[in-house]
């Protein structure tokens, strides 16, 4: 069950970008074959495939992550690129400012408070609860906030990503069940609850959903950064 990679292959700089790309391509292919089923999320499939490969070859995550930097580095420009659909939706946004403000505030408060209280009620450690509190925001902010609160940054990063995957998989069916018919609401909720991965999902649904999701990622980072400390104190942490 354990077969290390040949040294010359492991040293090839294109190995991990190539593996990542292949895993994601398999993920999109599987999703397409299942008629776009949300549960067959390509990000989730790719993470499972790459994770299994790392385990099988005994490759430490740090070595993989260093090798996959060319792909990871594109996240920055892609985040900036969310401005493009946002600009296209500016007129719609101007007319929805109050709704966006109310929905974002509600989402940010509920996310931090329910994360803290649920973990504590179910017997989780205080450091897990404090890592859960900022999990809805984009990974780098979640890590910084968890550090400030006394949680574990690396756990917060993993929770942020797992939460994003959950949103990508579950948001369309759940929001349809709740009779949410407005693309703005779909996008804003996906970005608020699932940050970047939620936004990546929303952008594939509809341009307006993607625009509001991108906006939600930015604004929720800001709102949560301000509110999470006071909320944690109010919840007795």
């Amino acid at each position, binding site marked *: 069950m354990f077969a290390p990679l040949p040294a010359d292959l492991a040293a090839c700089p294109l190995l991990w970008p190539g593996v990542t790309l292949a895993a994601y391509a398999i993920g999109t292919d599987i999703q397409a074959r299942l008629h776009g089923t949300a549960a067959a999320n390509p990000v989730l499939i790719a993470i499972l495939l790459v994770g299994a490969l790392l*385990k099988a070859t005994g490759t430490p995550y740090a070595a993989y992550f260093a090798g996959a930097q060319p792909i990871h580095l594109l996240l920055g420009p892609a985040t900036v690129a969310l401005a*493009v659909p946002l*600009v296209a939706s500016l007129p719609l946004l101007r007319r929805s400012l109050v709704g966006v403000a109310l929905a974002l505030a509600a989402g940010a408060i509920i996310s931090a408070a329910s994360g803290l209280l649920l*973990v504590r009620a179910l017997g989780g450690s205080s450091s897990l609860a404090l890592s859960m509190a900022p999990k809805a925001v984009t990974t780098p*902010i979640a890590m910084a906030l968890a550090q400030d609160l006394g949680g574990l940054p690396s756990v917060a990063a993993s929770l942020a990503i797992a939460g994003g995957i959950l949103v*990508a998989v579950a948001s369309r069916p759940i929001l349809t069940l709740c009779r949410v018919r407005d693309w703005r*609401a779909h996008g804003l909720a996906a970005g608020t609850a699932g940050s970047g991965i939620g936004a990546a999902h929303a952008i594939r649904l509809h341009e307006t959903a993607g625009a509001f999701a991108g906006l939600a990622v930015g604004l929720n980072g800001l709102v949560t950064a301000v509110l999470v400390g006071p909320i944690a104190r109010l919840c007795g942490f």
Partner: protein
Amino acid sequence: MLKAFLILIAAQLVGTGLQRAGHLPLPGPVLALLLAARPAWRSRGLDPVASGLLRHMGLLFVPAGVGLIDHLDLLRSQTLPLLAGLVGSTLLTLVVTALVMEWHGKLGVRIPGGRHVRPPAR
């Protein structure tokens, strides 16, 4: 296309510079997103590059996402609070945010001349 990519990278660097200089809580790319969201940017020819990056944005999260495997031990030792906390809190946030936005669009302040942008029926 080359220029569009350069603009995206330059915007990110400006955002990161602002974050460092002002000790702001938002990461550089997110600051750049908020700063760049203005109509003047429409004419810069960003659309082809931006839509290419955004269509496959999920791919870009895979390297960071694989980091989940370093926390499988925590998943074993605190299974219930971790899973139920994450799933419960995330879905609650999703539903509350969407419903507030949906209700506000329906009954709150009337959107002047606005219309609901509805997903197509499936």
